[in-house]
């Protein structure tokens, strides 16, 4: 596990909208854990750049979140570079970029952050 996910806490107003962006050369699978909500997972095809994830209406409060990133390379996609980002309501909350180590065919990592959901102004 050598992927470092740079994440920071964020305060966001309802409704919450999450978007995941992948501009990696490698294959990437992302998992977002928000409190006790069901996990949000997405594997990117190269026809996708940014996807918006529908979330249930979150009640105001503090949610402990974890953003898990896994990058893989295959024979058909030998590129090792990864570059992904997580936005909440259009604001960057987590990001990572780098390369899968040369002696491995995959790498992973995660970052924790707190999401404070506030009522809409």
């Amino acid at each position, binding site marked *: 596990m050598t992927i470092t996910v740079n994440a920071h806490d964020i305060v966001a107003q309802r409704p919450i909208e999450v978007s995941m962006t*992948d501009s990696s*050369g490698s294959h990437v699978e992302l*998992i977002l854990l928000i409190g006790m909500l069901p*996990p949000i*997972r997405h594997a990117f*095809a190269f026809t*996708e750049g940014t996807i918006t994830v529908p979330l249930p209406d979150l009640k105001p409060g503090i949610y402990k979140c974890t953003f898990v990133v896994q990058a893989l390379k295959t*024979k*058909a996609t030998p590129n090792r570079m990864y570059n992904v980002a997580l936005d909440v309501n259009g604001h960057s909350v987590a990001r990572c970029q780098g390369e899968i180590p040369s002696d491995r065919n995959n790498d992973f990592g995660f970052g924790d952050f707190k999401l404070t959901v506030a009522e809409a102004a």
Partner: protein
Amino acid sequence: MKALPARWMWASTMLLFFCIVSMPAGAAEEDSKDINNYLVDISGGAVSAAGLVGAKSGITTIETSQDLVVALQPFSSAGQQKSAFGLAITPARTTLLPMAGKTYISSPFARLLGNLSFSYAQNQVTYSGTPYKATAYAVNTMHYFKLSDDPAYAASMAFKNCADKKGDEHARKVAELFAQRPSMEAAAFDKALAELMNGRATALISCTEAAVAALAKARWNSGRMSVSYGEGRLGASGGGSYSLGRSANLNAQLPAGDKGAIAISLRQTSAALDTSTLGMAAQAYKSSSLAAARYTYGDQGATALRALVEVSNAKASSGPSDRDTFKYAIGIDKKLMKGAWLEFRLGRNRATVDGKGQTAALMSFNISPTLLEFKK
């Protein structure tokens, strides 16, 4: 010698570059995956040693966009070769002008641009004891009629399909592990996470590679086309230069059942120097058209064996680059390893010197340029 064709060539090259740069929602989208990440070997190569020893097929194998060197064959096969240099670039597969995958699949036109390649080659050749420098430029692109046959698209979708199969189950396991994290030792958590993620990676990579291999196997005869244009010049060391010709090529392949493929190639060559007139007071130039068709029966396994029959309209009056093309031939292609084929042809063609019909047999070793590509 007219310099205008070379300028035209450069102008059209720049225009096509400009088209890529100015594509709407296209190049260099930072939040999108680019097609340069998907390099897939799809079949035997098109850069044939046959072009160097004389007799050759009229059929051009349609390959990935990296394989456009074939467009230069008519210019580099004549004369005795002493040294050669060539380079090729597919702008959409570079970091300079990357094309987003989203753009690539948006239309057939976008895919033609995404596979557009430019190439240059030069070579030292000798005619009648006099050294010349041969140079050639070419533009090439190719297109799969069905998007699902496109190797770049197929590789990407293979990964996504594999990931989505048991994705929810994997995500649930990850969530459960992170839920237990507060009560776990850090080392124990790291170990459990590593096992989970490495297991996931092993399953995904295995599934994806198997799917890509299956797609490639089924795709060897898929419908595709390529278009290329090139021109060459021959420069004398004492000054002056001659046109080696301008060549436009259109190639298409269509499936004929599960194990068959029909390929058609059309080539129009104009202002091609008859090198036998070099050193004379006036040089002769020829224009010619070549049409060829081939039926292939076989498969795309690891040790694939294919049988084929082909015909062309090569004539004694054809240009120097087409004259020795097989009029008709039968042949066998045997795959030795990934990207490497042993090819045998037996048929009738015309002698380069006098244009008389002759029976010719040709054994060649054909290497795909994808074997030589840089791996990131």
